[in-house]
C-alpha cells in the first residue's frame, strides 16, 4: 500500500487498480465479465445481419434473454453450491438430486393413469401446488441426507455426496425406465408464462433467489456462521455455534435450490431424460462458483461473484457457439476459463 502513495499520475492509478484487482475478487471477475460481454456483442454483430439499430438491439436482447433463461437452472444451483463451498465442503450430488426431483414431479403430476395425484383424485391447481411443495420438500430432504452424513456421520463431503450422486441417479433411472409421462398444461406455465411476449420467468426466479441468497449471506446468523465455519471450524465450534446444524442446513438449502431448478426445467421442457439430465451439473456449478472468486478452501466468497461466474461461463459458451467453434472443443475452453480465472485471482504471497 505504501508503494501506491509514493507513485503519482498514471503509474499510481495502475498500481491502485492492481491492488484492487488483487484484494477484491469481485473486481477482477467483474472486469472479466465486462470484457466477455463486449467480445460477445461484437461477435454477435458480425454474425447477424441487421438493417437498423433497433433491429440490432432486438437481436442482442433476444440473445441475452435466451442466454439467461437457458442458464437460470445452473445459476440457481450454483447459488447453493456457493454456500457449500464457503462452508468448506463440496456437493457432487446436485445433478442427481436434480434428476430425482424431476422424476418425482413427473410421477406426481402425470396426467395419465399412473400419475399419483391424479390417481388420488386431485387435479388442477391444488394438485400442482401440492406437487411443488412435495418436490421442494424432497429436494431439501435429499440435501439434508447429505448434511446428516457429513455432520453426524463425520464423512468428508466429497465422499458422502459422491455416494449419494451414484445412488440417486441409478435408483431414479431404475424406477423411471417404463414411465411415460405427460404434464398438465397449467404446470408448464410456471416457466413458460409470457411477459410482454417473452418467457422471462426462469430469469426472474434466478434473480429473486440470488437476491435472497445475497441477503442471507450478509445479514443472517446462518449466513455468517457459514463463512465462520469455512474459515475456522474449530474456533466456530468453540464459540458455542452448533456447527453440525449449520452444515446440515447448508446442504438442505442446496437441495431446495436444486429442486427449484428441477421444477423450472420440467415446466419449461415438459420432460426429462433421466439418463443424462443434470449430468455434469456439479462441475458446471462448481466452475461458476470458482470463477466467481469463491475460495475452494472455504471462508471466502460471495453470491454476487457466483452470479458473475455463471454469466462468464454462459457468455463464453454462447460466444463459442456464435463464432462456430467445434462443439467438441467447447469443454476445452471451459477448462481454460476456470484455470485462467483462478490464476488471475490468486493473491501474491507475502
Amino acid at each position, binding site marked *: 500500500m505504501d508503494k501506491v502513495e509514493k507513485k503519482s499520475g498514471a503509474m499510481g492509478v495502475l498500481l491502485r487498480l492492481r491492488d484492487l484487482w488483487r484484494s477484491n475478487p469481485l473486481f477482477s471477475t467483474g472486469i472479466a465479465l465486462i470484457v466477455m460481454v463486449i467480445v460477445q456483442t461484437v461477435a454477435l454483430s458480425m454474425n447477424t445481419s441487421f438493417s437498423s439499430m433497433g433491429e440490432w438491439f432486438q437481436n442482442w436482447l433476444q440473445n441475452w434473454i435466451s442466454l439467461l433463461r437457458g442458464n437460470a437452472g445452473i445459476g440457481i444451483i450454483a447459488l447453493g453450491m456457493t454456500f457449500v463451498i464457503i462452508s468448506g465442503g463440496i456437493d457432487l450430488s446436485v445433478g442427481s438430486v436434480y434428476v430425482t426431483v424431476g422424476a418425482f414431479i413427473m410421477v406426481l403430476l402425470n396426467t395419465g393413469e399412473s400419475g399419483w395425484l391424479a390417481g388420488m383424485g386431485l387435479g388442477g391447481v391444488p394438485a400442482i401446488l401440492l406437487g411443488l411443495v412435495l418436490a421442494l420438500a424432497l429436494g431439501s430432504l435429499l440435501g439434508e441426507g447429505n448434511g446428516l452424513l457429513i455432520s453426524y456421520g463425520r464423512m468428508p463431503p466429497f465422499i458422502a455426496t459422491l455416494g449419494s450422486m451414484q445412488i440417486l441417479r441409478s435408483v431414479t433411472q431404475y424406477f423411471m425406465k417404463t414411465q411415460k409421462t405427460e404434464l398438465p398444461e397449467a404446470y408448464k406455465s410456471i416457466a413458460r408464462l409470457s411477459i410482454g411476449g417473452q418467457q422471462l420467468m426462469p430469469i426472474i426466479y434466478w434473480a429473486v433467489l440470488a437476491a435472497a441468497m445475497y441477503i442471507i449471506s450478509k445479514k443472517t*446468523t446462518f449466513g*455468517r456462521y457459514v463463512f*465462520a465455519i469455512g474459515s*475456522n471450524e*474449530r474456533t466456530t465450534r468453540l464459540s*458455542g455455534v452448533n456447527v453440525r446444524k449449520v452444515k446440515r442446513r447448508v446442504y438442505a438449502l442446496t437441495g431446495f435450490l436444486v429442486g427449484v431448478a428441477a421444477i423450472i426445467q420440467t415446466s419449461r421442457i415438459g420432460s426429462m431424460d433421466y439418463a443424462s439430465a443434470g449430468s455434469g451439473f456439479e462441475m458446471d456449478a462448481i466452475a461458476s462458483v470458482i470463477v466467481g472468486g469463491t475460495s475452494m478452501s472455504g471462508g471466502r466468497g460471495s453470491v454476487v461473484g457466483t452470479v458473475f461466474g455463471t454469466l462468464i461461463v454462459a457468455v463464453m459458451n454462447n460466444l463459442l457457439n456464435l463464432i462456430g467453434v467445434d462443439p467438441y472443443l467447447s469443454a476445452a475452453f471451459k477448462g481454460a476459463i476456470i484455470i485462467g480465472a483462478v490464476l488471475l485471482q490468486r493473491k501474491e504471497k507475502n
Partner: protein
Amino acid sequence: MKLEMRGIYKSFGANDVLKNIDFAVSGGEICALLGENGAGKSTLMNILGGVLPADSGGISLDGQPVSFRTPAESLNAGIGFIHQELNLVNDLAIFENMFIGRELKTKSGLLDSKTMCGRCREVFRRMDVDLDPRTMVRDLDASYKQIVEIARALLMDASIIIMDEPTTSLTDPEIDRVFDMMRTLQAQGVAMVFISHKLKEVMAVCTRYTVLRDGAMVASGQVEDTNVDELARHMVGHEVRTESLRQERELGPEVLRAENLSQDRYFSDVSFSVRAGEVLGFTGLLGDGRSELFQAVFGSGGKYHGQLYLEGQPVAVHGTPQAVALGIGYVPRDRKENGIIKDLDILENGSIVTWPKQSRLGFLDWNQVREDFRRQADGLKIKMGGEKEAIGSLSGGNQQKVVLAKWLNAGPKVLIFDNPTQGVDVGAKEDIYDTILALAKEGVAVVVLSSEAQEIIRLCDRALVLYHGRVQGELSGEEITDQEIMRLATGGSVQNEGVQQNG
C-alpha cells in the same frame, strides 16, 4: 568424545537470550539441561544442533574447535538432535523412517530394503531392543517412537544425543523403557543431553545437571549432590517479583463443581469446585491434561466419566452450544487455531458468541452487535483502526482482547481462561489481568489455566496443580508460590498443610 561450549552469547533483537553460557558433556554422561520456559535451553541446543548461529563463543569436540552452520553439519559431526515433536512419518515402516533422505539403493536403482533392514537390526541389537524394522511407525507406542528416533541418530553415528523433553507425551512404563535405553547407551559411552522440566526424572536418570535462568547459567554440578527442592529453587530463582493482584472479595455460592472427572488418556479422578467471585487456577507442566479437562467441561472434548454440577444441579454437557446456554464460557489456548476466525472482521470475531441474542428471526441486528462490541472494546482498551478491518491487522494482544470481548458480552456464570496471555505483550497482559479480576468482582466464577506460575500466583485465590492428569495438590492464598507449584508440578507432594487430594 567430549563436547564443550564456551562463552556462548545470543540475542534476538534487543532481547539477550543467552549470556556467557558454558556447557559441557562427555561420553558416558547424561547431562540434564534445566530451566523454565524461555530460560534459553532450546536456543542453546539449537546452536549446538546447527539450527541457529551463536553471536559469539565457541564449540569444541575433543578439543578441536568446530562450527555448525546447518543441522546436517552438526549431524555429520556426530551430534543427533531429537526434537520434542517427533520427526517420524507414521505411514512408513521403521527402516524407511530411519533411512529417510539417505536411502540405500541396489545397482539397478531400486530401494535396497534388505540391507537397510539389516543395518537397522544391528543398531537395535546394540541398543538391546527387540523391534522389527518393517513395522509401521503408526503401530508403535510413543516410547518406541522415541526409541526409533534415538536409533536413527545412532545409525548416523551420533555419539552425542540431545533429547528435548522426550517424556512429555509418555506414560510411566513408557518413560521407564526410554530410561533403560538411555542407561544402555550410557554404558556404551554415548553422551546424552536431557532437556526437561521434570525434576524427578532428572534425579532418576541423569548424572550431571546445568540450570539456566533468563539466559544465564545459574548452577551446575553432579546430580547425586543435589535434590529436587534445590533444583526447583535454582530454576525459579529468588529475585522473581511476585506482586500479587489477589484481592479480598466476597465469595458467593458455588457455581461449578466437578466430581471425579476422568477421560482415558488425559485426566483422571479430578474433582474441584469454584464459587461466584472466585479465581481458581489450574497449572502443571506440558501433558498435565488441564486443557483437555476443561475442553471436556465446555463440551468440546469428547466423552468423559464423572459428574458436573452447575449451581448445584447435575448437568451433562454434550456440546459447546449447550455449554454456552448453561452459562459456561471458554477462552481457548492457541489463539490462531482456536481463538480467531481469520476471514471474519474484528466486529464479527468479537461478537459471534452472542449472535443468537442479537438477532431476530435469524436476521442480525448489526447496530446492536456494534453497540455491544464497542462497550467491551472500550473496557478492554482494544487498539484498532476500524471494527470492519481484518482481525489479522491487530497485534497479538489486541486479537486476544477481541476473543475476550465475545465472551464478556455473553455474560457467562463461569468463564474459563486457557493460557489467556499466550503471545501477548506486557501491557495487554496487565489489561487482561484487570479484566479477569473485574469479572470476579462482578460475581463471575473464573477459572484460569496457565503454564506460567507467575500468572497463577498473581491472579488466583486458589490453585490446583496437576501432574499427569491427576490433582497433585491444592494451594491457596499465600501458599501459592513458585517453589510449591514447581514441586507439585514435577510430581512432588504438598509440604505445607495444604489439602492432600491424592494420597
